[in-house]
Protein backbone atom coordinates (compact mmCIF):
# COMPACT_ATOMS: atom_id res chain seq x y z
CA UNK A 1 0.00 0.00 0.00
CA UNK A 2 1.22 3.47 -0.83
CA UNK A 3 -0.38 6.75 0.08
CA UNK A 4 -0.93 9.30 -2.63
CA UNK A 5 -1.15 12.81 -1.25
CA UNK A 6 -2.24 14.10 -4.67
CA UNK A 7 -5.11 11.61 -4.74
CA UNK A 8 -8.55 13.13 -4.49
CA UNK A 9 -9.33 10.64 -1.73
CA UNK A 10 -8.79 11.59 1.91
CA UNK A 11 -5.91 9.80 3.63
CA UNK A 12 -8.14 7.82 6.03
CA UNK A 13 -10.08 6.45 3.05
CA UNK A 14 -6.84 5.45 1.36
CA UNK A 15 -5.89 3.58 4.54
CA UNK A 16 -9.29 1.88 4.65
CA UNK A 17 -9.16 0.87 0.97
CA UNK A 18 -5.55 -0.29 1.24
CA UNK A 19 -6.50 -2.59 4.11
CA UNK A 20 -9.60 -3.76 2.23
CA UNK A 21 -7.44 -4.65 -0.78
CA UNK A 22 -5.08 -6.58 1.49
CA UNK A 23 -8.03 -8.49 2.93
CA UNK A 24 -9.36 -9.22 -0.58
CA UNK A 25 -5.92 -10.40 -1.67
CA UNK A 26 -5.65 -12.64 1.38
CA UNK A 27 -2.63 -10.81 2.78
CA UNK A 28 -4.72 -10.46 5.92
CA UNK A 29 -6.78 -13.64 5.97
CA UNK A 30 -9.82 -14.31 8.14
CA UNK A 31 -9.05 -14.25 11.85
CA UNK A 32 -5.66 -12.66 11.16
CA UNK A 33 -4.57 -9.49 12.92
CA UNK A 34 -4.32 -6.31 10.84
CA UNK A 35 -1.73 -3.57 11.56
CA UNK A 36 -2.44 -1.37 14.56
CA UNK A 37 -3.12 2.35 14.41
CA UNK A 38 0.35 2.91 15.86
CA UNK A 39 2.01 0.81 13.15
CA UNK A 40 0.05 2.52 10.39
CA UNK A 41 0.93 5.95 11.80
CA UNK A 42 4.61 5.00 11.87
CA UNK A 43 4.81 3.38 8.44
CA UNK A 44 2.78 5.99 6.56
CA UNK A 45 3.91 8.97 8.63
CA UNK A 46 0.38 10.09 9.42
CA UNK A 47 -1.48 11.28 12.49
CA UNK A 48 -2.66 8.24 14.51
CA UNK A 49 -6.19 9.71 14.54
CA UNK A 50 -6.26 9.52 10.73
CA UNK A 51 -5.05 5.91 10.79
CA UNK A 52 -7.63 5.17 13.48
CA UNK A 53 -10.42 6.56 11.37
CA UNK A 54 -9.50 4.21 8.52
CA UNK A 55 -9.34 1.18 10.83
CA UNK A 56 -12.57 2.10 12.63
CA UNK A 57 -14.38 2.31 9.32
CA UNK A 58 -13.51 -1.36 8.76
CA UNK A 59 -14.91 -2.23 12.17
CA UNK A 60 -18.05 -0.12 11.62
CA UNK A 61 -18.70 -1.78 8.28
CA UNK A 62 -18.31 -5.18 9.86
CA UNK A 63 -15.16 -6.43 8.12
CA UNK A 64 -13.02 -6.42 11.24
CA UNK A 65 -13.48 -6.70 14.98
CA UNK A 66 -11.60 -5.60 18.05
CA UNK A 67 -10.12 -8.00 20.58
CA UNK A 68 -9.68 -5.95 23.70
CA UNK A 69 -6.07 -5.32 24.58
CA UNK A 70 -4.81 -7.40 21.65
CA UNK A 71 -5.73 -5.69 18.39
CA UNK A 72 -7.96 -5.65 15.35
CA UNK A 73 -8.75 -8.89 13.49
CA UNK A 74 -10.34 -9.80 10.17
CA UNK A 75 -13.85 -11.19 10.58
CA UNK A 76 -14.83 -14.56 9.19
CA UNK A 77 -16.43 -14.03 5.78
CA UNK A 78 -14.94 -10.52 5.44
CA UNK A 79 -13.43 -11.12 1.99
CA UNK A 80 -16.81 -12.28 0.62
CA UNK A 81 -18.57 -9.30 2.18
CA UNK A 82 -15.96 -6.97 0.72
CA UNK A 83 -16.46 -8.43 -2.73
CA UNK A 84 -20.17 -7.74 -2.41
CA UNK A 85 -19.53 -4.17 -1.28
CA UNK A 86 -17.13 -3.51 -4.13
CA UNK A 87 -19.51 -5.05 -6.68
CA UNK A 88 -22.28 -2.76 -5.50
CA UNK A 89 -20.02 0.25 -6.07
CA UNK A 90 -18.66 -1.02 -9.39
CA UNK A 91 -21.29 0.60 -11.58
CA UNK A 92 -20.95 4.04 -10.07
CA UNK A 93 -17.17 4.01 -9.77
CA UNK A 94 -16.15 2.40 -13.05
CA UNK A 95 -19.04 1.95 -15.46
CA UNK A 96 -20.64 5.39 -15.30
CA UNK A 97 -17.37 7.32 -15.85
CA UNK A 98 -16.54 4.91 -18.70
CA UNK A 99 -19.89 5.50 -20.38
CA UNK A 100 -19.63 9.26 -19.82
CA UNK A 101 -16.24 9.41 -21.53
CA UNK A 102 -17.39 7.10 -24.32
CA UNK A 103 -20.33 9.40 -25.04
CA UNK A 104 -18.10 12.45 -25.10
CA UNK A 105 -15.91 10.70 -27.67
CA UNK A 106 -18.93 9.38 -29.60
CA UNK A 107 -17.87 5.78 -29.20
CA UNK A 108 -20.75 3.49 -30.10
CA UNK A 109 -22.13 0.91 -27.69
CA UNK A 110 -21.06 -1.89 -30.05
CA UNK A 111 -17.49 -0.61 -30.22
CA UNK A 112 -17.40 -0.29 -26.47
CA UNK A 113 -18.56 -3.87 -25.92
CA UNK A 114 -16.13 -5.17 -28.55
CA UNK A 115 -13.26 -3.32 -26.91
CA UNK A 116 -14.10 -4.74 -23.50
CA UNK A 117 -14.07 -8.25 -24.96
CA UNK A 118 -10.76 -7.61 -26.74
CA UNK A 119 -9.19 -6.17 -23.61
CA UNK A 120 -10.43 -9.13 -21.57
CA UNK A 121 -8.90 -11.60 -24.08
CA UNK A 122 -5.62 -9.75 -23.71
CA UNK A 123 -5.78 -10.18 -19.94
CA UNK A 124 -6.15 -13.99 -20.09
Amino acid at each position, binding site marked *: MKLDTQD*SKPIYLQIQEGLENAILAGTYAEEMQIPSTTELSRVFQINPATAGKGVNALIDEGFCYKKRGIGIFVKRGAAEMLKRKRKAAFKEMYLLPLIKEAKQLEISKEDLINWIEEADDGED
Partner: protein
Amino acid sequence: MERIRVRDISKNYRDVKALDRVNLEFEKGKIYGLLGRNGAGKSTLLKIIAGRIKASDGQVIYDGEALLNDETSRGIYFSEPDNILPESMKVRDFCRYTSQFYPRFNLEEASRILKDFGVDEKKRLNQLSTGYFAIVRSVVALHTRADFIFLDEPTLGHDAVSRELFYDEVLRIYREEENTILLSTHLIDEISNLLEEVIFIDHGRIVLEDNMENMMASYFYLAGPADQIKEIEGSFNVVEKKIDLGFASLLVQGSDEESVLPTGIRKSRAGLQDIFIARSKKNNE
Protein backbone atom coordinates in the same frame (compact mmCIF):
# COMPACT_ATOMS: atom_id res chain seq x y z
CA MET B 1 -1.67 20.38 32.08
CA GLU B 2 -4.83 19.76 30.08
CA ARG B 3 -5.83 22.96 28.34
CA ILE B 4 -4.57 26.35 27.22
CA ARG B 5 -7.05 29.08 26.33
CA VAL B 6 -6.03 32.17 24.41
CA ARG B 7 -8.58 34.92 25.06
CA ASP B 8 -8.79 38.10 23.05
CA ILE B 9 -5.04 38.45 22.78
CA SER B 10 -3.76 41.54 20.97
CA LYS B 11 -0.21 42.71 20.60
CA ASN B 12 0.83 46.09 19.31
CA TYR B 13 4.35 47.10 18.41
CA ARG B 14 4.06 50.90 18.27
CA ASP B 15 1.37 51.35 15.62
CA VAL B 16 1.66 47.86 14.13
CA LYS B 17 -0.94 45.33 15.20
CA ALA B 18 0.99 42.06 15.37
CA LEU B 19 -1.99 40.21 16.85
CA ASP B 20 -5.58 41.30 16.70
CA ARG B 21 -8.02 39.77 19.21
CA VAL B 22 -6.91 36.17 18.85
CA ASN B 23 -9.04 33.48 20.46
CA LEU B 24 -7.88 29.88 20.46
CA GLU B 25 -8.02 26.77 22.53
CA PHE B 26 -5.38 24.05 22.76
CA GLU B 27 -6.33 20.70 24.19
CA LYS B 28 -3.94 18.05 25.40
CA GLY B 29 -3.49 15.13 23.03
CA LYS B 30 -3.51 16.68 19.58
CA ILE B 31 -1.03 17.72 16.92
CA TYR B 32 -1.72 21.26 15.78
CA GLY B 33 -0.43 23.10 12.76
CA LEU B 34 -0.07 26.87 13.12
CA LEU B 35 0.26 28.02 9.57
CA GLY B 36 0.91 31.43 8.18
CA ARG B 37 3.25 33.51 6.10
CA ASN B 38 6.34 35.15 7.49
CA GLY B 39 5.28 38.04 9.68
CA ALA B 40 1.72 36.76 10.12
CA GLY B 41 2.05 36.75 13.91
CA LYS B 42 2.90 33.07 14.55
CA SER B 43 5.99 33.71 16.65
CA THR B 44 4.44 36.58 18.58
CA LEU B 45 1.48 34.38 19.51
CA LEU B 46 3.72 31.52 20.66
CA LYS B 47 5.96 33.84 22.68
CA ILE B 48 2.91 35.19 24.50
CA ILE B 49 1.59 31.69 25.23
CA ALA B 50 5.01 30.64 26.53
CA GLY B 51 5.12 33.69 28.78
CA ARG B 52 8.19 35.03 26.98
CA ILE B 53 6.56 38.39 26.18
CA LYS B 54 3.46 40.19 27.43
CA ALA B 55 0.31 40.78 25.42
CA SER B 56 -0.97 44.32 24.98
CA ASP B 57 -4.43 43.04 25.72
CA GLY B 58 -6.17 39.79 26.57
CA GLN B 59 -5.25 36.73 28.60
CA VAL B 60 -3.84 33.25 28.30
CA ILE B 61 -5.47 30.77 30.67
CA TYR B 62 -3.51 27.67 31.69
CA ASP B 63 -5.80 25.03 33.22
CA GLY B 64 -8.00 27.81 34.57
CA GLU B 65 -5.09 29.94 35.85
CA ALA B 66 -4.30 33.32 34.31
CA LEU B 67 -0.59 33.11 35.13
CA LEU B 68 2.03 30.46 34.61
CA ASN B 69 3.10 28.87 37.87
CA ASP B 70 5.93 26.41 38.51
CA GLU B 71 3.81 23.44 37.60
CA THR B 72 2.12 24.77 34.48
CA SER B 73 5.34 26.27 33.13
CA ARG B 74 6.80 22.75 33.17
CA GLY B 75 3.81 21.63 31.21
CA ILE B 76 4.97 23.85 28.35
CA TYR B 77 8.07 23.86 26.23
CA PHE B 78 8.62 26.51 23.59
CA SER B 79 11.35 26.17 20.99
CA GLU B 80 12.14 29.22 18.92
CA PRO B 81 14.51 29.93 16.03
CA ASP B 82 16.48 32.57 17.93
CA ASN B 83 19.06 31.15 20.26
CA ILE B 84 18.40 32.46 23.75
CA LEU B 85 21.04 30.20 25.32
CA PRO B 86 24.72 30.99 25.86
CA GLU B 87 26.35 30.61 22.47
CA SER B 88 29.30 28.70 23.84
CA MET B 89 27.07 26.03 25.35
CA LYS B 90 27.75 22.55 24.00
CA VAL B 91 24.92 20.48 22.54
CA ARG B 92 25.39 17.92 25.31
CA ASP B 93 25.14 20.62 28.00
CA PHE B 94 22.03 22.03 26.35
CA CYS B 95 20.43 18.58 26.76
CA ARG B 96 21.57 18.32 30.41
CA TYR B 97 20.38 21.83 31.17
CA THR B 98 16.95 21.15 29.67
CA SER B 99 16.61 17.80 31.45
CA GLN B 100 16.88 19.58 34.82
CA PHE B 101 13.53 21.27 34.21
CA TYR B 102 11.82 18.40 32.43
CA PRO B 103 12.17 15.17 34.42
CA ARG B 104 10.86 13.00 31.57
CA PHE B 105 13.84 13.99 29.44
CA ASN B 106 15.92 10.87 28.78
CA LEU B 107 19.51 11.95 28.08
CA GLU B 108 20.62 8.64 26.59
CA GLU B 109 17.69 8.45 24.26
CA ALA B 110 18.03 12.07 23.11
CA SER B 111 21.71 11.50 22.52
CA ARG B 112 20.98 8.46 20.36
CA ILE B 113 18.39 10.37 18.30
CA LEU B 114 20.72 13.34 17.81
CA LYS B 115 23.33 10.89 16.52
CA ASP B 116 20.77 9.55 14.00
CA PHE B 117 20.48 13.10 12.70
CA GLY B 118 24.25 13.35 12.42
CA VAL B 119 24.70 15.87 15.23
CA ASP B 120 28.02 16.01 17.06
CA GLU B 121 27.10 16.61 20.71
CA LYS B 122 30.51 18.01 21.54
CA LYS B 123 29.94 20.99 19.28
CA ARG B 124 29.04 24.37 20.70
CA LEU B 125 25.68 25.85 19.73
CA ASN B 126 27.35 28.70 17.84
CA GLN B 127 29.33 26.21 15.75
CA LEU B 128 26.16 24.66 14.33
CA SER B 129 24.74 25.60 10.95
CA THR B 130 21.16 26.93 10.81
CA GLY B 131 19.90 23.48 9.86
CA TYR B 132 21.78 21.65 12.62
CA PHE B 133 20.75 24.21 15.22
CA ALA B 134 17.12 23.69 14.22
CA ILE B 135 17.56 19.91 14.51
CA VAL B 136 19.14 20.19 17.94
CA ARG B 137 16.57 22.55 19.41
CA SER B 138 13.63 20.65 17.90
CA VAL B 139 14.84 17.23 19.04
CA VAL B 140 15.55 18.61 22.52
CA ALA B 141 12.08 20.17 22.57
CA LEU B 142 10.39 16.86 21.69
CA HIS B 143 12.38 14.99 24.31
CA THR B 144 11.16 17.23 27.13
CA ARG B 145 7.99 15.20 26.60
CA ALA B 146 6.13 18.20 28.03
CA ASP B 147 2.33 18.24 27.87
CA PHE B 148 2.41 21.13 25.41
CA ILE B 149 5.35 21.44 23.03
CA PHE B 150 5.36 24.49 20.79
CA LEU B 151 7.81 24.28 17.90
CA ASP B 152 8.38 27.49 15.99
CA GLU B 153 9.81 26.76 12.53
CA PRO B 154 11.23 23.39 13.67
CA THR B 155 12.63 22.45 10.28
CA LEU B 156 14.27 25.73 9.32
CA GLY B 157 17.25 24.83 7.14
CA HIS B 158 16.82 21.03 7.48
CA ASP B 159 17.42 19.04 4.31
CA ALA B 160 14.68 16.72 3.00
CA VAL B 161 16.18 13.64 4.69
CA SER B 162 16.34 15.15 8.15
CA ARG B 163 12.87 16.64 7.77
CA GLU B 164 11.53 13.13 7.13
CA LEU B 165 13.39 11.81 10.18
CA PHE B 166 12.08 14.68 12.22
CA TYR B 167 8.44 14.06 11.26
CA ASP B 168 8.88 10.41 12.27
CA GLU B 169 10.20 11.57 15.63
CA VAL B 170 7.29 14.00 16.15
CA LEU B 171 4.81 11.18 15.60
CA ARG B 172 6.76 8.73 17.76
CA ILE B 173 6.88 11.09 20.77
CA TYR B 174 3.22 11.97 20.23
CA ARG B 175 2.18 8.31 20.15
CA GLU B 176 4.14 7.62 23.33
CA GLU B 177 3.04 10.68 25.29
CA GLU B 178 -0.34 11.58 23.82
CA ASN B 179 0.68 15.17 24.48
CA THR B 180 0.09 18.28 22.41
CA ILE B 181 2.62 19.18 19.75
CA LEU B 182 2.23 22.38 17.78
CA LEU B 183 4.18 22.88 14.58
CA SER B 184 4.41 26.45 13.40
CA THR B 185 5.65 26.58 9.85
CA HIS B 186 5.16 27.85 6.34
CA LEU B 187 5.98 24.38 4.88
CA ILE B 188 2.32 23.60 4.83
CA ASP B 189 1.74 20.61 2.60
CA GLU B 190 4.70 18.75 3.99
CA ILE B 191 3.24 18.47 7.48
CA SER B 192 -0.43 18.16 6.57
CA ASN B 193 -0.58 14.39 7.19
CA LEU B 194 0.77 14.86 10.69
CA LEU B 195 -1.91 17.23 11.83
CA GLU B 196 -5.19 16.77 13.59
CA GLU B 197 -6.03 20.46 13.95
CA VAL B 198 -5.17 23.37 11.68
CA ILE B 199 -4.94 27.07 12.49
CA PHE B 200 -4.36 29.64 9.75
CA ILE B 201 -3.11 33.01 10.86
CA ASP B 202 -2.73 36.04 8.61
CA HIS B 203 -1.93 39.64 9.48
CA GLY B 204 -2.37 38.91 13.17
CA ARG B 205 -5.80 37.36 12.77
CA ILE B 206 -7.06 33.81 12.87
CA VAL B 207 -8.41 33.27 9.37
CA LEU B 208 -9.45 29.67 9.73
CA GLU B 209 -9.39 27.05 12.45
CA ASP B 210 -10.65 23.53 12.01
CA ASN B 211 -10.12 19.85 12.34
CA MET B 212 -7.91 18.60 9.52
CA GLU B 213 -10.45 16.08 8.20
CA ASN B 214 -13.23 18.67 8.17
CA MET B 215 -11.07 21.18 6.42
CA MET B 216 -9.98 18.77 3.71
CA ALA B 217 -13.55 17.58 3.21
CA SER B 218 -14.98 21.07 2.85
CA TYR B 219 -12.90 22.38 -0.03
CA PHE B 220 -12.42 21.02 -3.52
CA TYR B 221 -11.44 22.09 -7.00
CA LEU B 222 -13.58 22.11 -10.12
CA ALA B 223 -11.69 22.52 -13.34
CA GLY B 224 -12.62 22.51 -16.99
CA PRO B 225 -13.31 24.67 -20.05
CA ALA B 226 -14.06 28.28 -19.04
CA ASP B 227 -17.48 28.28 -20.73
CA GLN B 228 -18.63 25.21 -18.82
CA ILE B 229 -17.27 26.55 -15.54
CA LYS B 230 -19.17 29.78 -16.10
CA GLU B 231 -22.42 27.85 -16.37
CA ILE B 232 -22.03 26.05 -13.06
CA GLU B 233 -20.18 28.54 -10.86
CA GLY B 234 -23.39 30.18 -9.66
CA SER B 235 -24.40 27.05 -7.78
CA PHE B 236 -21.21 26.83 -5.71
CA ASN B 237 -19.60 28.87 -2.96
CA VAL B 238 -16.48 29.92 -4.87
CA VAL B 239 -13.45 30.90 -2.79
CA GLU B 240 -11.11 31.45 -5.70
CA LYS B 241 -11.41 31.48 -9.46
CA LYS B 242 -8.62 31.24 -11.99
CA ILE B 243 -9.05 31.63 -15.73
CA ASP B 244 -6.30 31.18 -18.26
CA LEU B 245 -6.17 30.16 -21.93
CA GLY B 246 -9.84 29.23 -21.95
CA PHE B 247 -9.53 26.95 -18.92
CA ALA B 248 -10.96 27.79 -15.57
CA SER B 249 -10.66 26.36 -12.10
CA LEU B 250 -12.72 27.06 -9.03
CA LEU B 251 -11.76 26.46 -5.46
CA VAL B 252 -15.09 25.68 -3.89
CA GLN B 253 -16.14 25.57 -0.28
CA GLY B 254 -18.93 23.20 0.58
CA SER B 255 -19.56 19.56 1.30
CA ASP B 256 -17.92 17.08 -0.99
CA GLU B 257 -21.24 15.47 -1.92
CA GLU B 258 -21.43 13.91 -5.32
CA SER B 259 -23.13 16.43 -7.56
CA VAL B 260 -23.84 15.83 -11.19
CA LEU B 261 -21.22 17.70 -13.15
CA PRO B 262 -21.19 18.33 -16.89
CA THR B 263 -18.84 16.14 -18.90
CA GLY B 264 -15.48 17.79 -19.10
CA ILE B 265 -15.48 19.21 -15.61
CA ARG B 266 -13.15 17.48 -13.23
CA LYS B 267 -13.31 17.51 -9.49
CA SER B 268 -10.21 17.14 -7.34
CA ARG B 269 -9.11 17.54 -3.77
CA ALA B 270 -7.58 20.81 -2.64
CA GLY B 271 -4.34 20.71 -0.67
CA LEU B 272 -3.91 22.50 2.62
CA GLN B 273 -1.57 24.94 0.91
CA ASP B 274 -4.15 25.75 -1.79
CA ILE B 275 -6.80 26.44 0.80
CA PHE B 276 -4.42 28.59 2.81
CA ILE B 277 -3.30 30.72 -0.14
CA ALA B 278 -6.84 31.29 -1.33
CA ARG B 279 -8.07 32.22 2.15
CA SER B 280 -5.14 34.60 2.71
CA LYS B 281 -5.81 36.35 -0.59
CA LYS B 282 -9.48 36.67 0.26
CA ASN B 283 -8.57 38.05 3.67
CA ASN B 284 -6.51 40.80 2.05
CA GLU B 285 -9.14 41.92 -0.41
